[in-house]
């Protein structure tokens, strides 16, 4: 069995799927990628048992036989070869021999039949969505996902489809991000599913800003996304996502408008002297002025003042500056709006004229 290809033909798909392969493995074969040999292409699959990504590379192949090779090593070899190099890959016994110019590599392989490929049950529903839209939905919310929370259903992103609207929600219990696309699915589906954190991060990396339609297949425990040149499959988190509607601030009666860039710079400066653990900053808004104050256990202090649009009653409220900056980074608009009620109620933040993406941040007691 022999595969003849170019460095560039192999490098791109290898780089696309490398992120799926976990560095620390319980099963040795999981640090490998599966190569299925077809006549004029090879299929490359990577998995960590939760997320699977399959893509292909153009190649001239003769003979039959599938095998698995160490992902990291074959990627590093391809990267290190000179541009435009020809690559010949042959399987010989329990080794894969790679030749390119005057370079020779012999890589250990493991049998293809041992490779755990995800076989979802027949899909219960199928719909399509613009690739760029899904990318947006993920990019605008993924930062708010929890990490290693025991409330395992928070370690992921909610994907909700209802009345043709698609909505994503991520939260770690202290802040929440919501993004929606209206009437973008032509289907009467009504589902809520939770994608695991890693799948969300990988998808965010993988999706392009393209107007192409991609196909999403849902089955009991899996979601499969078919995009240009790649099939992405992920397990779903089996759990109930908390009722996010309930925590969206209601009854806010104060509105603060600020220049996003200026506010972000002020926050970054003030954050230097905030408590490293809790990162609290006190916001005081009154009469078109926003004052930011931070101090740390060493009794050092920072104070910032900036002009904003604010005419409501004076309010003093504390926020975790990290959470606030995360939100500002996710907002594209130049002007942001912060809706508030009192110092114990969470804030609703969004870009001007864009309520498609909304953010909730809980206040801190400071």
């Amino acid at each position, binding site marked *: 069995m022999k595969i003849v290809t170019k460095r560039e033909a192999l490098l791109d798909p290898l780089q696309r799927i490398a992120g799926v392969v976990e560095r*620390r493995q*319980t099963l040795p074969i999981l640090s490998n990628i599966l190569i299925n040999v077809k006549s004029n292409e090879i299929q490359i699959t990577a998995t960590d048992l939760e997320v699977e990504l399959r893509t292909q590379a153009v190649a001239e192949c003769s003979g039959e036989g599938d095998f698995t090779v160490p992902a990291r090593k074959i990627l590093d070899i391809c990267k290190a070869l000179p541009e435009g190099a020809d690559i010949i890959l042959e399987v010989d016994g329990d080794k894969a021999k790679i030749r390119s110019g005057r370079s020779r590599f012999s890589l250990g392989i493991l049998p293809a039949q041992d490779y755990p490929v995800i076989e979802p049950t027949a899909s219960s529903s199928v719909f399509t969505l613009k690739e760029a839209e899904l990318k947006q939905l993920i990019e605008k919310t993924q930062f708010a996902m*929890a*990490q*290693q*929370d*025991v*409330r395992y259903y928070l370690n992921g992103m909610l994907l909700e489809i209802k009345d043709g609207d698609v909505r994503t929600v991520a*939260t*770690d*219990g*202290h*802040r*929440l991000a919501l993004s929606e696309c209206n009437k973008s699915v032509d289907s009467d589906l009504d589902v809520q599913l939770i994608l695991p954190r890693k799948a969300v991060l990988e998808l965010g990396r993988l999706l392009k800003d393209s107007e192409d339609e991609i196909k999403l297949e849902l089955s009991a425990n899996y979601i499969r996304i078919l995009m240009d040149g790649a099939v992405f499959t992920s397990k779903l988190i089996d759990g109930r996502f*908390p009722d996010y509607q309930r*925590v969206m601030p209601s009854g806010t009666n104060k509105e603060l408008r600020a220049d996003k860039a200026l506010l972000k710079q002020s926050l970054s400066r003030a954050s230097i002297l905030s408590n490293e*653990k*809790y990162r*609290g900053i006190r916001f005081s808004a009154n009469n078109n002025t926003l004052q930011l104050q931070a101090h740390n256990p060493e009794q050092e202090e920072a104070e910032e003042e900036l002009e904003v649009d604010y005419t409501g009653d004076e309010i003093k409220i*504390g926020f*975790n500056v990290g959470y606030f900056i995360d939100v500002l980074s996710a907002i594209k608009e130049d002007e942001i709006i912060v809706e508030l009620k009192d110092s114990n109620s*969470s804030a609703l933040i969004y870009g001007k004229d864009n309520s498609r993406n909304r953010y*909730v941040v*809980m*206040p*801190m*007691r*400071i």
Partner: protein
Amino acid sequence: MNRESRVWVMHVDMDAFFASVEQRDNPEFLHRPVIVGALPGGRGVVATCSYEARAFGIRSAMPISEAWRRCPGAIYLRPDMPRYVEASRKIMQLLQSISPVVEPVSIDEAYLDASGLERLNGEPESIASLTRQKIREAVGLGCSVGIGPNRLIAKLASEYRKPNGQTVVRHEEVQAFLDPMPVSNLRGVGKQTDKIVQKLGIQTIHQLRQYPLEILSAHFGRKGGRHLYDQARGVASSRVGGTQGRKSISKETTFKRDVTCRRQLREKLRQLSAEVGRSARHKSLKGRVVNLKIRIEGFETHTRQCRLPRAVNADGEIFGHAWKLYEQSGLAGRSVRLIGVGISDFGSEEPMPDLFESSREREEKLYSTMDEITDKYGINVLSRGIRR
């Protein structure tokens, strides 16, 4: 006499504490090797051994089987904690009468702020001998005392002449005191650091001192390098007492026979996590770090830890993280001799409320009710159901 006021830290370390208590209470054990810890045939370790046993090369934390091999004729005893705790309590109380600032670091060890005691007790040497004499009178046990300008020097000084010794290292004597010592005497020099130290061909602190900070940082990391650099120059904290309280809560178990079975390990870890959780809730502490300790075959000990975004003390959460640490440790499948779990980095109460607070409050109420029942009726009367 020159009575310049200087900072003095005193370190008091009881000599072979458990074994000495046994020898005091059982005169027939005097002048014989006494080993307190696991019993031979078991799989635990030596907790403490008398100096007579140390002559056989027996040390604390050595597997009991190894101790048996070296000295089958020794007296082997299980620890009798209540008696040791009672002695320790008396000692700590007595130390309070010497200096108002006492920081017990373990059952048989304490730091004292000995600054400004000269007027009362004379030179540091007399303070040291007074302390040793008072302890002997009060509890009939020997100890070693070290006095120096900071914690590091005081501790090294108490180890310098043991047992029943005392050493005072004055500020200007610090370097000469440190220089000939092996690097392994310094704090934080364990197996890993020692390996690198050996590779660099460093043996004494004097040699270590020749290395500039940048080189040490390159080999031992920014923090580790700085730590060694400072210690080699006798630079360390002289703070005694204050905020230092309990730093971690942990529980561990040595299995009778090595265990590889996942289910069994999982069960044990769950049980230990519940003990840690209960203990933490009793003290109203929550930790932001969960630690896992595993000793596998060949007495190889590994620890793993993870930092959490939020402080925890719920059994389920501690267990969840500990189990994850185990699964990611790369040790899954190895046969395990000892397993332990703990939490540390106790912070103040989270100032950040939770969007979905109600669920957490319910959880906390549930645990406090369970704790009350356990306190009243004992462990294993009530536990949470597990979905398997």
